[in-house]
Every structure is written in structure tokens, then in C-alpha cells.
């Protein structure tokens, strides 16, 4: 076990989740490399080897478009998330990065006060470290434990 590896991934995910939970969505794409990949899928799709995602982006531009759409186009009742993250499990150490799995639970708090356990699952991350960018996601796959989404999934997980 290398504490430093765990700390790097945990710190990146803690800052990532904080940006989402405090509605700083404009900062969200900056956690990824410009050619980084992000997707949300379900454990059921993964188990069947099916490639469909609920959200799928392969560039910083697509991530920023998600934010623009949420801010300017899509209609949804105001809501916020509260992420609770588990300890990263380092699954591979590579020359310039780490691969890790991190459990998450997200509560969704609606405008009128309703709070529900909205999503549970696992982040499968490929974190790359370099001198210029620090630690960034080259790839982040959000695997939802359940295939059911309540009403809508507007804000990224």
C-alpha cells in the first residue's frame, strides 16, 4: 500500500466532488485532461458488456457543453448534491498515472427540501499526473449500482 497514491486520488476526487456540491460546475471540466473522457453508465450495462452511457464526453469541449446546456438550456427544478466518497482502492500503478476505484453515495436535495439517496456507485478513474496540470482525470467512468434514475439526472455525478 502506498499512502501517497491513495492521497492523490482521494484529494482529486474530494476537490471534484466539492466543485459539484457547491455548484461550481464551470470548474468541473478542469478536473479532466483536455482529451479526457467522462461517462456515466450502470452496473447492468457493464455486466452485459454493453457500451451505452447516460452521459458521455470525450473532450473538454463536450464537458463544457454539458455545463452550458445546464446553465442556459435545460429546464429542471433547482437541486443540489451531497457526495460522500469512500477510500480509493488503487488498482494499477503506471508510469505516469494511477488507476483507482472509489465508492460514492450522492444525496439529492430538492428546492422544496426533499432529500433522497439519489445515486450509489463506483468511480473507475484513470488519474494522470504531470508537472503542468498536476493530477487530472484522463478517464472517469461513473458506474451506477442501480439502473433506475429518479426523474432526471441533470447535474453530473
Amino acid at each position, binding site marked *: 500500500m502506498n499512502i501517497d497514491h491513495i492521497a492523490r486520488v482521494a484529494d482529486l476526487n474530494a476537490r471534484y466532488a466539492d466543485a459539484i456540491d457547491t455548484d461550481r460546475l464551470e470548474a468541473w471540466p478542469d478536473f479532466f485532461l483536455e482529451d479526457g473522457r467522462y461517462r456515466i453508465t450502470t452496473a447492468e450495462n457493464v455486466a452485459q458488456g454493453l457500451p451505452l*452511457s*447516460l*452521459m*458521455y464526453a470525450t473532450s473538454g*469541449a463536450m464537458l463544457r457543453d454539458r455545463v452550458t446546456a445546464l446553465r442556459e*438550456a*435545460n429546464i429542471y427544478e433547482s437541486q443540489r448534491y451531497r457526495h460522500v466518497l469512500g477510500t480509493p482502492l488503487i488498482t494499477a500503478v503506471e508510469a505516469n498515472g494511477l488507476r483507482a476505484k472509489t465508492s460514492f453515495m450522492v444525496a439529492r436535495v430538492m428546492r422544496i427540501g426533499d432529500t433522497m439517496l439519489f445515486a450509489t456507485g463506483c468511480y473507475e478513474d484513470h488519474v494522470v499526473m504531470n508537472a503542468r496540470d498536476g493530477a487530472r482525470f484522463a478517464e472517469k467512468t461513473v458506474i451506477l449500482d442501480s439502473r*433506475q434514475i429518479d426523474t*432526471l439526472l*441533470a447535474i453530473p455525478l
Partner: protein
Amino acid sequence: MNIHTSGRQWPAEGLTRVPYWIYSDRALYDEEQERIFRGNTWTFLCMEAELPRPNSFRASNLGDMPVVVTRDANGVIHAFENRCAHRGSLLCLKERGEAREIVCVYHNWTYDLAGNLTGVAFRRGIAGKGGMPSDCKPEQHAPRQLQVEVFAGLVFGTLGRNTPPLEQYLGPDHVARICRVMRAPAKVIGGYSQIIPSNWKLYIENVKDSYHASLLHMFFTTFRLNRLSQKGGLVVSETGGHHISYSMTQDIAGKEYEQAGLRSANETYRLEAPDMLLKNVDEFRDGIGLQILTVFPGFVLQQIRNCLAVRRVVPRGLDKTELVWTCFGFTTDDDALAELRLRQANLIGPAGFISMEDGAAAGFVQRGVAGAGTEVSLVEMGGCGTASEESRVSEAAVRGFWKDYRRHMGL
């Protein structure tokens, strides 16, 4: 004509008025299950591609009623109630899989893949003691078997005794428009489900409401995916219950939205990477960029550019509906087209740039009418008829739904 259980009466104005109690009456909900979902209608159960091999099974629903859909060893597709003849336990506890027979976990009663009871554990007891009397006929309590028809790779089932043959039920327009989309053997690329916080009929109305599409969904309008000024049309079946709304990819570049000052025509809104979502291939070779097709009561076939999906509308209670999405391509897709479908899937589902609002909108109505009692909604865009027309500034398909609904319900 009044409904027996509730004594409710439809407003005198007819199809242009929908009473709000229709979304919140428990007795009516139960009666819908009997008269519509278990009545003389065809319910979409799954894609044939979800039963890829002999001995495949898939869990599905006929309204409230859980069903198992199977492909037997000879390749024949069956569907039957997911309920043991003995004590009513669910028979099939997996979403999908392969099995030579279905075994109830509770007391090990067994069924073949057509839903016939084939074995009762210790039926004659042990060493002459216990067991079931010889005149007991458990077969008479077997799960109900559905009549099944497969059309264009889509599996439908019915329990009705007088349901017309599927192609006749669909009608010629729907037969042609389903075949248009299902142009090759389908390949499932994944799925998910969305819980809609409303009565099932509010979601159905939303899908049939071509008037809302470019007003609620700004994404559509800004990127000219579907403006009501785009060429297209609305087809309503003779029964009223099925509809097709479509539009051509080519826009006539009208400024009607901007001139009307509508919220959804924000000229300054631009994407950085629009091609990643909106570039499309005219795979159907007819210039139609969007086609939404429904079959009464709860089936949706969707083509948004190259993003193809079927949706099953499953009532889960008076104010809860599960929308089960299955996205597909074709076995003939090359890598580029397969990737295009995955990118365009950003438009649909609970996180879809276009679809996310639909789940919420139906819920807004459910909450909005909580105290509306005997009030009614207005469904008068495009007049009072249910005929097909070119204009999609029309609620003809919504009126058509209520026409068919009332016929089945005797309301």
C-alpha cells in the same frame, strides 16, 4: 356511459377537455389495468434481440402484471405471467438469462418455457405419506399465458380475447413507419430506467404532445433539431391511440420563434462541439431526422437522428411510472455509426439534453393538479379533431389518446 367503480363522467365538451381526476383516481387505475393493459390491447414486452438464443428469458410487464418472456429450445417466443400456480410467488427472479425450465424458488414447482406447469415437488408425498390429493388440479391455477406476436424484431403480448391481430391493430401507417426504423437486425447497445413522478397517462400525453417539443426543450430549438416550422407531420391512427410525429432534418431557417420572443429561441446559445452530438448519417435515406412513434397503450419507438430506442411505459402506482429505455443499433453498423449512436445518446434518457425535461414536466402536472378537483385541462391546439395533419402545432395525438382510452374504458 359511467364507469362502474367510480361513477365519474367525462366533460361534455369531449376530447378537448381532460378532467384532472383522471390522474389521481385509485379505482380508475385498477380498472385501467383490467380493461386496457390486460384487455384487448398489445403491450410491447421486449426486443427479439433481447432473447438472443434458445432458452433465453427476459422479465417484463403487462401493466402492473409481471411477465416472463422466453425463447424456447425450438426458437419459439412465449410470454406468461410471472406468478407461481401454487402460492403466487414470482417465478423468475432475474432480469434476463438462460434456462431450460423455470423453477419457483419457494417450493420448487417447475414450468417449461411456455409457462406450463411441469412438476410439483412431492406431489404424491414421500413413502405414501403427505402430498397432494389425486383430484387436485394445480394446472388449473397456472400462470396466464399471453398471446405473443413478433413484428419487425419487436415482441408484443396480449391477454385480451378480442385483440385484433397485431398488424391490424397497428394499422398501415404504423406498420410502414416501424419497418422504416427497423431496417436491419437490431443489436441492443444498453439501457436504463427512469422513474417518472406521475401517473402513466401524463407521460404518454407528453410523448404525444408535438406542441411542447420545441417549446419546453430548448436544446431542440436552438440547434434546429425540431422546430415546429421544420417540415414534418403528425399521423394519428384511426383508433386515435397510436401516433407518429416526424420532422425533416432540413430547416427552412424560419425566424418564427425569435419573432414570437419565445424563451426557447436563444440565438446566443452555442455549443463548442456540436458535431460530436448532432452530426448525423441519413441511414434511412429519407431525410427524416426525428420520428417519435407510439402504440397504445404504452410503447414508444424513437429515432432522434441516429439515436434509436424503445421505451416501455410501466405503471408503478397512481403517481409513479417506470420508463424502461432500451437503446439499439443494427448488427450491420460499422464502428463509426456505432460510436455516433453512443454520442447521440447524450440527447436521450434521464440525463438527455432533450429528454431530461419530460420526466420532470409530467411530475409538474401531477403536483400542480393536486387540488384541482373537478377542473379540466384544455386540449384544443389544432381544433377538436384527431385527424392526421401537417402542422405539429396541434394536440390531435393527445386527443386521439383520450379517444381510444375512453373506448377501452367505456368512459
